[in-house]
């Protein structure tokens, strides 16, 4: 299957039997009660477009844009509809054939000129933490949607209060610190490598302690997930192609990612680069870190951490990759760690790639709802396996609530002294 300008495939659309079982799972339908903001409705729009009954107009685009890409509908669908491919195809078609209003175009241009490139993200991150201290983020308030200034303000508001710790050195092979079980490569990504150095460090620490050599190649760019999910297929293809070219020849047992959003795209490069054996071979080796550690089995000595952890299942982990139990099992492997899930735990937090930048109003409603259901748990820390969710939840939570990737808690437990 190739993602391009031709639009959603009729064959995939036809697997939808219009039963509506996906409606209760869809956050945008739950908020709007509008059929056109539901999975069934969006698939129907695609069908009607292919039938020539409706055109590719601003209303059509708005209903597709408002989809979070959270894939809760995929999990709910008894008919096995491949909505993930459909929505990517619809968004790519819009990108290729629809002239967005100039403001929207500019906003997207700015986002995709900065986010996929760590060298450009870094100064923004510094600005972000500075603006937090200066209170600039208040600009974001009262500007629910609109131009570049509002987007920038939303972006700044999302950035962490404290610029995260330094990133681990690149082009290094970190050696296993326990009997050797293999060698893996760490995918560093774009946003995550700027903002979440501590997650990378933790992944390296845990993998080494579990007996894996960890290769961290330098010069890795963005994997293209953000672009793919937003329908920017040409950019996504370029980024994916570059990554495969850069890493394809490295001899590792598996490529590990700590980002759920990246993982779902990294595992399906075939969609972006069809018929390319190198990209398929690469995709087959990609593992989410939870998935990998769980499959291999934990052997290291995890010491007690008395804490209550609220776990938020990232959509791209639970729905898009079906990784549901693994993170819980890993967290529960830490002695003294109590893991709790918020109510409505399957509902998206509103982060959804660049969604919180381009659809801030819905993102805010979902973000606040998620933060308050997490607050009710009175946890010491909120853990989730996706950088975007960590930022989004932190933005709407009490500043006192710590947040971490589950692998950071594993690393902390390794370091803890035996009580």
């Amino acid at each position: 299957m190739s993602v391009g300008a031709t639009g959603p495939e009729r064959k995939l659309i036809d697997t939808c039997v219009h039963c509506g079982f996906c409606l209760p799972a869809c956050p945008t339908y739950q908020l709007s009660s509008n059929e056109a903001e539901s999975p069934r409705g969006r698939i129907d729009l695609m069908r009607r477009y292919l039938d020539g009954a409706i055109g590719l107009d601003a209303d059509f685009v708005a209903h597709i844009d408002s989809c979070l890409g959270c894939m809760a509908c995929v999990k709910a669908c008894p008919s096995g509809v491949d909505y993930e491919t459909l929505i990517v195809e619809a968004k790519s078609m819009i990108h290729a054939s629809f002239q967005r209003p100039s403001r929207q175009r500019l906003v997207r241009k700015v986002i995709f000129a900065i986010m996929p490139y760590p060298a450009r993200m870094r100064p923004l991150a510094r600005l972000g933490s500075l603006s937090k201290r200066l209170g600039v983020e208040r600009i974001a308030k009262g500007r629910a949607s609109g131009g570049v200034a509002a987007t920038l303000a939303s972006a700044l508001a999302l950035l962490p209060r404290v610029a995260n710790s330094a990133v681990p050195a690149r082009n290094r092979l970190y050696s296993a610190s326990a009997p050797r079980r293999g060698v893996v490569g760490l995918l560093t990504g774009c946003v995550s490598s700027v903002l979440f150095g501590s997650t990378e460090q933790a992944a390296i620490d845990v993998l080494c302690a579990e007996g894996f050599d960890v290769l961290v190649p330098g010069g890795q760019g963005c994997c293209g997930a953000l672009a793919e999910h937003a329908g920017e297929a040409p950019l996504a293809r370029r980024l994916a192609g570059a990554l495969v070219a850069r890493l394809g020849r490295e001899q590792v047992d598996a490529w590990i990612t700590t980002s759920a959003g990246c993982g779902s795209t990294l595992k399906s490069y075939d969609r972006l680069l069809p018929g390319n054996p190198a990209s398929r071979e690469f995709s087959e080796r990609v593992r989410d870190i939870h998935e990998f550690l769980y499959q291999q089995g934990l052997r290291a000595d995890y010491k007690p951490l008395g804490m209550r952890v609220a776990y938020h299942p990232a959509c791209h982990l639970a729905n898009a990759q079906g990784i549901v139990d693994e993170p819980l099992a890993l967290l529960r492997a830490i002695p003294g760690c109590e893991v709790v899930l918020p109510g409505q735990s399957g509902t998206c937090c509103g982060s959804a790639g660049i969604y919180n930048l381009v659809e801030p109003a819905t993102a805010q409603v979902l973000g606040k709802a998620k933060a308050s259901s997490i607050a009710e748990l009175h946890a010491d820390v909120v853990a989730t396996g996706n950088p975007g969710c960590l930022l989004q939840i932190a933005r709407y939570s009490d500043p006192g609530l710590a947040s971490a990737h589950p692998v950071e808690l594993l690393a902390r437990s390794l370091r803890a002294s035996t009580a």
Partner: protein
Amino acid sequence: MPIASLSDRIAEFKRRVVELVPHGECIVGDAPALSSYGADGLIRFRQTPEVVVLAKSTEEVRAVVSLCAELGIPFVGRGSGTGLSGGAVPPAHGVVIAASAMKGIVEIDPVDRIAVVEPGVANLVVSERSAPLGLYYAPDPSSQSVCSIGGNVAENSGGAHCLKYGFTTNHVLAVEVVLPDGSVEVLGGESPFEPGLDLRSSFVGSEGTLGIVTKVWLRLLSRPEAVRTLVADFDSVESAGAAVSAIIAAGIVPAAIEMMDALAIEACEKAVAAGYSLDAAAALIVEVDGSQEEVDALYEEVKTACITCGTTKIREAADQAERSRIWLGRKAAFAAAGRLAPAYIVQDGVVPRTALSSILGRIQELANQVGLRVANVFHAGDGNLHPLVLYNPDSTQESEAAEKLATEIVELCVEIGGSITGEHGVGLEKACSMAAMFDDGDLEAMQRLRVAFDSQGIANPGKVFPTPRLCGDAPGRYRAHALELSGEAVRF
């Protein structure tokens, strides 16, 4: 009737409706969204509405219906759009009044065991919200996680557990409705017996043709003390059918008896991996509930009946999780058929319970004649069957053959003394088949009731009743079946 032209009236409607819905939403100019309201769960019928109103209150519904009445514009109520007879397909140049945004639970009274709910609330949500009080809402359509209470009332929906507990109508104490002239009435009352004509029960099952439901008083039940569930495999549909008859003949009223044939088992298993045996020709799901003692005794009797009829394997749900899994599989059946073929028609007919296994053979014959596959799921205890006619929509010939087969199947049901619908309603799809069941006098009597509520004919017109436009000039006349004439079978 207003005299202005239809297009002028519609234009005026569009101008004025927006102000009548201050809290809800009016979809007027958004062509893609309007188009998405063109069909319900049955995608074969479609008509794009002029306007969709997502109302937030009875007052908003009242104001919009009044405007429809004033301007003579037809409207249709809509819940979650899971209906399977085209009931929520908008009339031409019509308005959709959707209750999907009215999904609150107004009150749950644990003492009188009554839930007062808005019409858009999903069936399952009522049970979930009453669960902490040890209560639940009994009617359980397979679509219960999605379908709305308003839609259930309109369709008098049933479900697996209606065998023991009855259909929607047995659980609705009262409804608040907006009648087609814009007046608001409450029909029925909080006590199960109300003096006077029972208008509530004419509203339940009226498929949106008498007005819009805006609030519902539901009867809740206490969770049974104990529940046991088994899945029994059989190597033929006949022996599974015989087991159903044996269970009923023993005087047992299980909470549910469901039957699936091999193709249906395959589809469900693909969708949810419920642990059904893929090598069985048919399977029964039987559930008994009540006090522990009663349940244990009934369970043994059911098991014996299955064994006597030659079951090849019995699996009992070990716990609630396994029970849920078993039901999830069964409830996914329709949509799961999408995994067997790119398109299918869900048929809904009723036959006398004793005719269950013979009709399956007849259906198979009809299907073989035209080379189509049919998967079957049944509410076996009620004799309510749902054949799923699988076909490829890309082939016009196959699509036509499938439609024809589906119609032949319901007509077969009538022929052997059954009915054209068990729970999915008549809607658009079966309006023409009504004449196969009722004679002119019956239909006229129903029309008179309808006109008493809706003198202008603006509430969901074109549904339920056969019209010449829909069915051609000479709808087939109902002829009593020989069994009926001889008194061996009763029509219901």
